[in-house]
């Protein structure tokens, strides 16, 4: 197989290749691994590969094909998995020194489902440490470079997964999103990324950052592949109490429906200060939607301006608790030469966590502290309710909401790392959907004059992934990526 062939694989092309016996799953896995390992130094998208596991999965697919059995909708498809999602027997580091050598004893539910569907996991992808960041520069194992523009960030925190898919070293990938960590890197790298409804995909085996906001979701080079991967990993899991019982529709079958007459809302709060090239591209995207027959109207999400503050209180509060278990007692690296128990905690955590994790642990500890809880955490929860209500109101008027994913395209490595507030503000458009727990996604919407990808965000009602994907698919098929 040529490099170009591998780079341009889709789930459908893999399927056809296997069924026509043009290649076996094992041959594909070997070729894909070789290609990915060769290309990886350009981006640092993968932290490590798991060839044994990949080849074993591929052999299983071949055996099923030979036996005339259905090897599943992802048969033989090379997949990358963000390194905050557990893989049994394969190191899962969360891009943190603390878990540098952590080998989990169980698989995340999403990983189990992915492999049951025939997916072949090539390796684990880089990200911001414990998924905290918007540029992938907070990885303990070095930043990821954007495959489109190597001096720029791929976005974060799922920068490695987005970059691998954009670079062609994986056909699809799993990422995680807490406040934009799938959508923003998808937009920066020019691929499709989906944050499903909260509860749609099990969080069991996703290393927790902020439990009430964490999602697992797919990356792909096209809407159909993203829909298919979502289909595979979605659905109730008894191991996650917050996973939903709602039935999972056939997302792929529902892609091709008509979008004429679909009511699309543009929240005025999101466009008010958007004068950049990103704004132009989104405006062109919106024009395309109109040409597709969508009814576009302005709406209001009045509590948007409080979203960033609200988000950074809730996510840091939960993070401060979720990260407490990395204490040097059991599986995390223990700092040597500590005289007392509190020294052991202080040294192990102090040496193990990077700056951004420490910052969020401190913020979160502060907002939960006696005397501040009401003023910060409780207030933030109330604001969260208001933001969710904004969407409920809006969805009385419209079916879907369209916004930019990020105020700007991929920025340069090092450009914002010294200014945490500027970094936090870059999440402005993705955070509201996360707080509301609604499905949202990024779909490519043209490129800037410099050639940097822009992503259009589509937000939908709870559990209306199908409607959201239908619009994205129509947009993509109508040439949305080249507007």
């Amino acid at each position, binding site marked *: 197989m040529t490099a170009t062939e591998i780079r341009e694989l889709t789930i459908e092309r893999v399927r056809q290749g296997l069924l026509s016996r043009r290649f076996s799953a094992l041959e594909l896995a070997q070729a894909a691994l070789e290609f990915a390992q060769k290309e990886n130094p350009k981006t640092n998208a993968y932290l490590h590969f798991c060839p044994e596991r990949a080849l074993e999965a591929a052999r299983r697919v071949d055996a099923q094909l030979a036996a005339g059995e259905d090897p599943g909708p992802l048969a033989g498809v090379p997949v990358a998995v963000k390194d905050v999602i557990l893989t049994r027997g394969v190191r899962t580091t969360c891009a943190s020194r603390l*878990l540098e050598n952590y080998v989990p004893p169980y698989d995340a539910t999403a990983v189990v489902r992915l492999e049951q569907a025939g997916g072949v996991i090539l390796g684990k992808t880089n990200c911001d440490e414990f998924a905290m960041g918007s540029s992938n520069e907070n990885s303990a194992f070095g930043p990821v470079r954007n495959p489109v523009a190597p001096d720029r960030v791929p976005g974060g925190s799922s920068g490695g997964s987005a970059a691998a898919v954009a670079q062609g070293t994986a056909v699809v990938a799993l990422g995680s999103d807490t406040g934009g960590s799938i959508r923003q890197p998808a937009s920066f790298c020019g691929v499709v990324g989906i944050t499903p409804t909260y509860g749609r995909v099990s969080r*069991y085996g996703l290393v927790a950052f902020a439990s009430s906001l964490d999602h697992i979701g797919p990356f792909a080079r096209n809407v159909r592949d993203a829909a298919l991967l979502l289909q595979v990993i979605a659905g109730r899991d008894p191991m996650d109490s*917050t996973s939903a019982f709602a039935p999972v529709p056939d997302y792929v079958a529902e892609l091709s429906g008509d979008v004429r007459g679909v009511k699309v809302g543009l929240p005025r709060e999101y466009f008010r200060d958007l004068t950049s090239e990103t704004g132009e591209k989104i405006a062109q995207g919106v024009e395309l939607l109109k040409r597709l027959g969508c009814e576009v109207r302005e709406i209001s999400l009045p509590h948007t301006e409080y979203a960033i503050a609200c988000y950074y209180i809730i996510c840091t509060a939960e993070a401060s608790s979720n990260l407490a*278990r990395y204490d040097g007692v059991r*599986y995390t690296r223990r700092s040597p030469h500590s005289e007392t128990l509190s020294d052991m905690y202080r040294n192990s955590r102090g040496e193990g966590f990077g700056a951004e994790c420490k910052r969020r642990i401190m913020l979160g500890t502060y907002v939960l502290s*006696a005397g501040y809880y009401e003023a910060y955490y409780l207030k933030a929860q109330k604001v969260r309710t208001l933001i969710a209500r904004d969407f409920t109101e809006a969805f009385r008027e419209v079916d879907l909401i369209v916004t930019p994913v990020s105020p700007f395209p991929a920025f340069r490595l090092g450009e914002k790392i010294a200014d945490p507030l500027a970094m936090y503000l870059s999440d402005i458009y993705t955070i509201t959907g996360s707080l509301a727990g609604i499905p949202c996604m990024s779909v490519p919407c043209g490129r800037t004059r410099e050639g940097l990808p822009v992503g259009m965000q589509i937000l939908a009602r709870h559990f209306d992934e199908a409607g959201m994907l239908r619009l994205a698919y129509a947009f993509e098929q109508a040439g949305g990526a080249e507007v």
Partner: protein
Amino acid sequence: MPAHTIEGMASTASIQVSPDVLARYEAVIGLEVHVQLATRTKIFCACPTSFGAPPNTNVCPVCLGLPGALPVLNRAAVEMAVKAALALNCTIRQPYSQFARKNYFYPDLPKGYQISQYDKPLAENGWLEIFVDGRRKRIGITRVHLEDDAGKSLHEGFGDSDRYTYVDLNRCGTPLIEIVSEPDLRSPEEAYAYLNELKLLMQYVEVSSCDMEKGHLRCDANVSVRQRGVERFGTKTEVKNLNSFRFLKQALEYEIARQVAVLESGGTITQETRLYNPDTGETVGMRTKEHAHDYRYFPEPDLLPLKISQAWLDRIRASMPELPAQKRARFVRQYGLREYDAQVLTLSRALSDYFERAAAASRDPRAVANWVMGDLLGALKAEGKEITESPIRPEQLAELVDLIATGEISGKLGKEIFAKMFATGDSPRTIIEREGLRQISDADALSRIIDEILAANPKQVELYKGGKAGVLGFFVGQVMKATRGQANPQLVNQLLKEKLG
């Protein structure tokens, strides 16, 4: 004036407060009791709760707090907690209660937080009645909530225990309920009675075995003192590690005397947590309010709010057994027992069941009660047996009681037969038949024996006729001797009086 000394078992230290000083003060005590629920599996995972497994074997990613693991609530634990709450006359919180994270660092707490309940506990506003010095008193129950247990830190017992602490996480995730009382207790005796009643109740509704040695029942106390007549509460201390009934009483007595001594010497009480040391009998300051943990509670995002529907609640309520207080009242009403007797017979569900089975089979429930409380419990205690291990079945005891009630055998003979029943497990009739022990109620047979005895003792006959009525007892004794105690004593008396008349 003699000093009142409070001492622990091996104590050299003591606090000297004279009884009349102590008498000017009143203690205010509230208890926080942790009860381990008797579920088969843990509260948030499917690991067994069995005691005594090799260290770190009853564990999984969830109770080990491994990255990515999530809790799933055990339905059985909820049902038991609801049962306990209903038994304590609490209101189950509606529309829902909520779990919360209690954050703190400790090596045997693998998640770095305990999953507990905070501002929305499972149940609130209940009460428990205690019985002290012949008086009933209602103690308020503030709340009952569910939580998971931590593991155990083992600081000794290993070759390198001077340098290392070992951690056993088997206990992690064992379901607990915490029962918090109002500060309604006014003495160590009341606290003791409260804990005892609570234990009894939990065993009755079968939510816990309450085995204190296995840590199924753990108790902390909030203690303050105030001068009698003063309404405001004094500054309280929290005393921890009161893990036996004896320790509870000793620790409270010590702590009350300590606080009184501090106040009497012009000092003030520091709000702090104190640890009871059973070896010295003292309480020792652990940390003051300024150093108290800030647990940074917040709602547990991994668990949904806990809704107990009316239908579910009704099902649980229907499955509740009769509670000790209800049973006691019924025993008094139905069987005519004295309050105290009813109290003793309801000390455990097994004992009350035994009594009821015997009482139902007998025509004299009050006599049954006396036999159970006296002879049977005494014999069992002497052999270190529980009521469930009694060699005498309740129906057999009822038979014995009725044989006496109908005059078929004497009370004295009854005691003999009881001993034989206890030793062999045979029924009283079997023993009577086998050993020829039937009571002689045949007036003719007894008449002949009496005649012989009167003939053989003319001097005593004279004395009786001369006015010494006490001699009658001598003749009764002689008849009993001649009949090996099988003569019907009433009949003997009657016949003797006639013949000596």
